[in-house]
């Protein structure tokens, strides 16, 4: 199966953002991200009080890699999946759950957020986000990028990497 493109747009994107925001409120987590299985950020929210987030690209890439490895581990043990992943350090923690087949929910939380709440509301949010991701896959918007886009991108590459 060729990996489908998960594209959030308009109402679906607004719903995903609202869900992430609500999850932050319910759990007390710092940052909430919806990412695809390839490791790209689709939507993210941070609590108003939270400090500057870590590099989101790296966070998403590592979380997606970790989730993929965990899924492979589950299969080795004859399980279809290990659905959620929790990492807890002294101060910070990470909760990752599957938002359907093609996306993941990531919550970054600190010691003030109760793990039980993070898991409870995290799971609910992941289920709702899975439905949103499903709708996005069913109705992807058409990307109308013309040759001008390619030419502009090529010019930037020339500038960056040399002619």
């Amino acid at each position, binding site marked *: *199966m*060729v*990996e*489908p*493109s*998960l*594209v*959030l*747009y*308009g109402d679906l*994107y607004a719903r995903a953002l609202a869900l992430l925001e609500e999850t932050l409120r319910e759990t007390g987590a710092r940052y909430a991200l919806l990412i*695809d*299985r*390839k*490791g*790209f*950020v*689709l*939507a993210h929210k941070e609590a108003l009080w939270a400090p500057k987030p870590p*590099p989101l*690209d*790296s966070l998403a*890439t*590592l979380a997606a*890699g970790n989730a*993929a*490895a965990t899924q*492979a581990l589950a299969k080795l043990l004859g399980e279809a999946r290990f659905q959620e992943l929790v990492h807890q350090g002294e101060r910070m923690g990470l909760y990752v759950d599957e938002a359907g087949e093609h996306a993941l929910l990531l919550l970054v939380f600190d010691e003030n957020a109760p793990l039980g709440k993070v898991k409870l509301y995290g799971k609910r949010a992941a289920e709702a986000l899975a439905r949103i991701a499903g709708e996005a896959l069913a109705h992807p*918007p058409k*990307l*109308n*990028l*013309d040759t*001008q*886009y*390619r030419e*502009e*991108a*090529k010019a*930037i*590459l*020339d500038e*960056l*990497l*040399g002619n």
Partner: protein
Amino acid sequence: MSTINFANREINFKIVYYGPGLSGKTTNLKWVYGRIPEGRKGEMVSLATEDERTLFFDFLPLDLGEVKGFRTRFHLYTVPGQVFYNASRKLILRGVDGIVFVADSAPNRLRANAESMRNMRENLAEYGLKVEDLPVVLQVNKRDLPDALPVEMVRAVVDPGGRFPVFEAVATEGRGVFETLKEVSRLVLARVGSGA
């Protein structure tokens, strides 16, 4: 398939450096990281063993900035080359948009090059992809070796059909590194909006 975030007006592409162990995949990324100005690159992440062999992957986000209203980014990955890390290699290929195959010019690595290409074909097939359907650039690295094999000989074992653009490189000195990256990026961009 690129990941498009319409709401944030972002387009992201995934480029994977593939090839046998010690062929120079990580060196390519390190060179790019060292030469790209701040603001155009993100943090480089390396998941490596103590002796600096890639364990899971290396990752480097490259930011072209805004192109026709879309923030355009290339996410560069390497795979671990050693034979026994195939599970990791397979995972990294998920959703790949373009591939740089880094071949080794050393005579005793000819078989490893061929084996790695075969392995790549197999792993892509698990995602329903064929090498022929993807932008692939062949980089023949380590051209500074005194006993480097002729490029055509290396090519004959990994790309007998002569399909892929070929670049000679000495990644430790940066020779051919940007040229290779530019070509694969150009090929990936050429597919945008073409429905491929």
